[in-house]
């Protein structure tokens, strides 16, 4: 990094722990999470807020970290897939994804798990249509989506059909 670039201090909570870093004004949240904090589950793909691979939860709501300025996280809490296991539903979702073959290459999986968690937090017993609608902003090129819907329903204690 060139030393001349001004930096902004960002203090926030990431996966339940208070953290602090100095970032370039143009840095996005994904850069902060990956490069400063080593949270590589946050995946870079489309860069235009379409694919959901970089999705993280900001105060419990899914955001695309590829287009959110890092400083916007100041004072907020961020959850990435690394922190999911310690959260309610995190383990249930991970187990359901494994049991329902709801991933293949796995590149989309962290973003999908987080978005699904946000859904189940707000709607603990969704229908298949609600699951599809909520996950519309997450792409998966491997699975054809069906098994992901089944996994999310299973994590919610519901079966498909």
């Amino acid at each position, binding site marked *: *990094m*060139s030393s001349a670039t001004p930096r902004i201090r960002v203090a926030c909570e990431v996966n339940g722990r208070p953290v602090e870093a100095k970032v*370039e004004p143009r840095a996005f949240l994904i850069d902060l999470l990956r490069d400063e904090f080593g*949270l*590589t*589950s946050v*995946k*870079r*793909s*489309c*860069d*235009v807020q*379409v*694919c959901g*691979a970089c999705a993280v939860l900001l105060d419990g709501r899914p955001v695309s970290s590829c287009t959110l300025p890092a400083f916007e996280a100041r004072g907020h809490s961020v959850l*990435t*897939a*690394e922190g*999911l*296991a310690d959260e309610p539903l995190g383990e249930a*979702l*991970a*187990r359901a*994804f*494994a*049991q*329902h*073959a709801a*991933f*293949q*290459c*796995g*590149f*989309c*999986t*962290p973003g999908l*798990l987080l978005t699904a968690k946000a859904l189940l937090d707000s709607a603990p017993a969704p229908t298949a249509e609600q*699951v*599809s*609608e909520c*996950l*519309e902003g*997450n*792409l*998966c*090129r*491997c*699975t*054809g*989506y*069906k*098994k*992901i*819907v089944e996994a999310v329903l299973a994590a919610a204690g519901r079966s498909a059909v």
Partner: protein
Amino acid sequence: MSARAFSTVGQAVPRVDAEEKTSGRAKYTTDLALPGMAYAKLALSPLPHARIVSIDASRARALPGVYAVLTAAELTGMETHYGSDRKDRPIVAMGKVRFEGEPIAAVAAVDLAKAEEAVELIEAEYEELPPVIGLEAALAGESEPVQETNVCHRYEVAWGDAAGAMAACDHVFEDTFTFPMVYHYAMEPHAVIADYQADRLSVWSSAQHPFLVRAELARVFRKRLDQVRVVVPYVGGGYGSKSYTKIEPLAAALSRLAGRPVRLALSVEEAMKTVRRHATRATIRTGVQADGTFVARECRVELDTGAYTDNGVRVTERAADRLPGPYRFEHLRSEAVGLFTNTTPAGSFRSIGGPQGAWACESHTDNIAHALGIDPLELRLKNLVRPGEELLRGRRRLEADLAAPLAEVARGFGWHDYEPVSTAPHLKRGVGMACAVANAGASPISGAFVRLHADGSATVHVGTTEIGQGSRSALAQIAAEELRLPLSSVRVIASDTDAVPYDRSTGASRSTTLAGLAVHDAAADARAQMEDAAARYFETFAEQVALAEGSASFEGESISYGALIGQVFGGAGGEIVGRSAITPDHPSGKLAEDPVFWEVSMGFAEVEVDTETGRVRVLRYTSVADPGKAINPAQVEGQDEGAAMQGVGHTLFEEMRYEEGQLMNPNLIDYRVPTFGDLPDEFHTVLLERGDGPGPYGAKGVGEGGIVAVAPAVANALFNATGARIRDLPLTPERVWRALRETNDA
């Protein structure tokens, strides 16, 4: 022997990478870093076709934080070109640029922002040439050709006298269909970390074929194979886009110049300008008797292979092999010509030439059925190649019965008593089907070794790349089965050319069949050694000891694998190593013929068309996959469902659009791929398991088949619903709406 029940093969057990991939811990290439690593950015040609007059990188080189700027001038003391069939691709453009987005230079800098800043300072001067865009322009050849000529490759498969036989047929039908350029969108764009040192080149890459990359790098940098190491971490999707060698030579050349490790990670836009599927135009003429019997077929497919050969030769050949379809012909001539254009190079994409061929063949089949007043299912059943017959003369005979499952799945789909439900006057529903088989499996060259450790756990070394298809899980299941170990005791290690034996490639649906056979044989070799050791321990014959769940037993006594290995080596550790090398001469005799196996595709669609807007919705889709024996049924379904959904993309909306040589939609906003909302209301995969494949337990490949039948099945359903026959993909609302208007006017 055959009485033994499987313990893990055939079970839909969770994948062995589940823990890593659901915890965010799975590492992909861009998640790795080497000490002192530089970040690379490419300078891309803004023009589709031009002579390079000059490139001035002096301002970029002078920028603090820049380690190196690579242009063609720096490609000295090494080979400058690469390519799987032909070495026609320069590492960076030399003399000429041949497509918009071709790298002309690359910067390595302290960070990505600095590299991007430096790229902006590179000044290139060009002398523009007229771009060759589209098949017509390539065939006309009126301007300077893309390569020495615009013809990349010609190929023909023929027998009998197709042209002569047509004259004697009751009917002759002809149709022409086009298929667009489409983009794989592996969610992880291509990424490489290269560490070049004088006596050693190490590369971490999202490559599907690490051994082919190693060979290419060794040739380019004039090194021995042992001096080049290619490691493949987890890969974020391939579908063919990461086959052969892509950006590895460029990253390695930049590392050589910078004197430090270099990371080159492409953006989606750059990945779209790295490789795509071949656009095609296919014409089929079929001579048919009045009762619907096919007699003769002449077909021709022209393929747009883009600026460089990449895998264009093989794709051209497969396109001609696959275009005639799964039918019996006394007379056949199928020709293909691959043509260079000034667009993104086209290469492998899930069933090379398959979807393009089936789109034409199976739409044409329904046109014939309609013209003759025969049910499309009956016409297919009448003409499908039977088991034991040659589909392509001189090649492996078809093992599989196509007709019986087609008829059976049609029944389950409600084909015969289908009545479209009408929910509103402007919404019309209909059903369609498609069927295809593809020569698959690529080359039968794979090796494996299995190490059975002193505590009874095992490590499997095999070169197949885990690109999401679940190879590591299926191969672990095969190894566990043959070693008589619990699945949890078996680890399959990642592709690393230093540590795993040669595997030709990961593609053409070959891994479970060929790498699977390699693992099966290596594990069986290790098991045989354990049986011998147990026989010595129990002082009996090897045939009389039983191995199960990590123990050997005889007459009520048992000993764990670990203790037995201790006996073999005198208690001081050690390990049993099983080996295998799969070649066409495999003792089973099943790999001697080409192709390794025939991959089956069948699809049934029900669609709803909004006649006011032209929007098509897939209500129901049933796909048929033929794994022979599903090692892990959930993964087979997942592969097939994913392939079918990818097919929905190129059927309904995916298309790379070029205008005057410029890619107009190089991002995921303008290039739309299927989302959750495109999931059909009912979406099923039927698995055929008849044990008739050449792989372990009668397995054969799947994974590509599911994409092939979607477009013609959907278009045939659209035809069934509305009478509109559309000959160009994708079936966008505008195109459908226009076709409906023309159909109604006619």
